[in-house]
């Protein structure tokens, strides 16, 4: 399965470009039945035509096989696309050695880990960073925040997909499996988590607003503002209490929508009582 360091032919380049752009349409016919499967087959059409040529039987088999259920992160999917392109080529060269089932198995075995890594890196890290920068500008009424958000988040999304697609096609299955086993993925997602946490921490400080106007009578006509006591512990104490309260409820399997209703209720009751 070694296909290292050779120039790609114009057809291969064209097919990779086709996969790159068309795999973006994954949500166009996303359903709970096949998920991304139908788009997957559409992306693979030129590949099927290229590698199987006039062998109509194998081509049809590959076409039907590629419509099967498929679901992973839309950017990380590039790796699977690249790999399955290489595998279809090998199957065309020797249908006995590479069975259709084997290709499906490799696709399926990559789906889960790639979705987990893709979701955690993109949703918990890259999107948090991009949105954090975007939010901080947009909340001052600066449209640059929107462009930066789309540019950073969408740009990284596309760049990663293009890189993984080419990687999957050129390095072969063995290398990919080795990489998964080497723990590089775990290191990567650990780093992404740390980055996400720093960003979330800073956004909690800048976006959440919760203050208490309540005053406690201290006798002899003096009062103490409750907020000052809290901020004496650590500035933004109430924000942290609120955040970790929510984290606790989520750990207890509360649905987000109920947490939201609870907060609406707390807001209304708290402001009526004059403590929020």
């Amino acid at each position, binding site marked *: 399965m070694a296909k290292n360091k050779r120039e790609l032919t114009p057809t291969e380049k064209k097919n990779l470009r086709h996969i790159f752009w068309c795999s*973006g*349409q994954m*949500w*166009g*016919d996303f359903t709970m*039945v096949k998920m991304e499967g139908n788009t997957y*087959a559409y992306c693979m059409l030129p590949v099927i035509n290229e590698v199987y040529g006039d062998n109509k039987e194998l081509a*049809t088999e590959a*076409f039907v096989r590629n*419509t099967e259920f498929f679901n992973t992160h839309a950017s990380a999917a590039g790796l699977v696309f690249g790999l399955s392109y290489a595998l279809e080529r090998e199957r065309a060269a020797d249908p006995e050695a590479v069975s259709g089932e084997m290709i499906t198995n490799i696709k399926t075995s990559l789906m889960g880990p790639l979705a987990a890594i893709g*979701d955690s890196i*993109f949703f918990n*890290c890259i999107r948090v960073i991009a*949105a*954090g*920068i*975007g*939010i901080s500008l*947009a909340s001052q*009424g600066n449209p640059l*925040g*929107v462009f930066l958000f*789309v540019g950073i988040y*969408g740009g990284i*999304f*596309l760049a990663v997909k293009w890189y993984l697609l080419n990687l999957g096609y050129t390095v072969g299955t063995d290398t990919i499996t080795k990489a998964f086993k*080497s723990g590089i993925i*775990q*290191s*990567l997602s*650990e*780093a*992404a*988590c*740390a*980055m996400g946490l*720093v960003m979330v*921490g*800073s*956004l*909690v400080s800048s*976006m*959440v607003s*919760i203050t208490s106007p309540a005053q406690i009578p201290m006798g002899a006509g003096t009062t103490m503002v409750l907020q000052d006591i809290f901020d004496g512990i650590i*500035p*933004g104490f109430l924000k942290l209490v*609120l*955040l*970790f309260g*929510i*984290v606790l409820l989520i*750990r207890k399997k509360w649905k*987000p*929508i109920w947490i*939201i209703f609870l*907060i609406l209720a*707390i*807001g*209304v009751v708290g*402001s009526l009582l004059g403590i929020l």
Partner: protein
Amino acid sequence: MSILQAAIILTIMNYVISVLDNFMAWDATWRPLFVGWLTGLCLGDQKTGLIMGAQLEAIYMGISAIGGVIPSDPESGTLIPIAAVILSGTDMNAAIALAIPVGTLINYANTLVSPIQVAFLGLYDKYAAANDQKAYTLLHYLYCFVITPLPRTVVIFLALWLGVGNLGAINNAMPIWLINGLDVASGMLVAVGFGILTSMIWSKKLGIFFFVGFVLAEMMGVKTIGIAIIALAIAISIFLVDHKIQTVAAEVSSAPGGEQKAIEDKEDSLF
């Protein structure tokens, strides 16, 4: 601008956004930041759109990330409240507080119309089995441009046309204590999205980094872009150290005799 005119303009805008996002699958243009800005632009009040979009992005940041199932639709949860604020003078904070329930309602409506999508799925299998690539391609694009976005577009149009005026009316009928309460709640709601995110990425080992970010912003007043750079530096160093440890571990275990031998050697050398 009448409500109907605005509803038509925003429906077209929503359709374009849906198709654009489906076409890139990059999860960027249907987010509240982008939708909010564009809604404001379409209705001639860019600033309101940006400010509300930013706050709603913070709320939706965590909410849309739970394994494929979105409890509240961020696109309509942004579009409708912003339209209500600009067109019918709804209080901004009250509208933000109502955004998630609105998005949830729209999500239910979308689920109701989703059988339309499944109805034509059989055709895919039929065309694939016949190796009819032209028909398959045509069906795929029909899905991208019509079958998937159209039902949602109709839902959005009805919600805008019938909902925006009513949201304003509801807002006007609200007593002042309720509006004050929603004001307070809207500042706290942002924490829900962050709470979900935190609970997903929190680990005992890395938890301290949350406080690094919090302290940088709260006590030292570092701007977001500065914090992003610090976060990137932390991430790179964690990756390099972690990866180095793993490489060394792999080298040790691949040495002659394998891992067990290496550990035994190490133990021997202790004595």
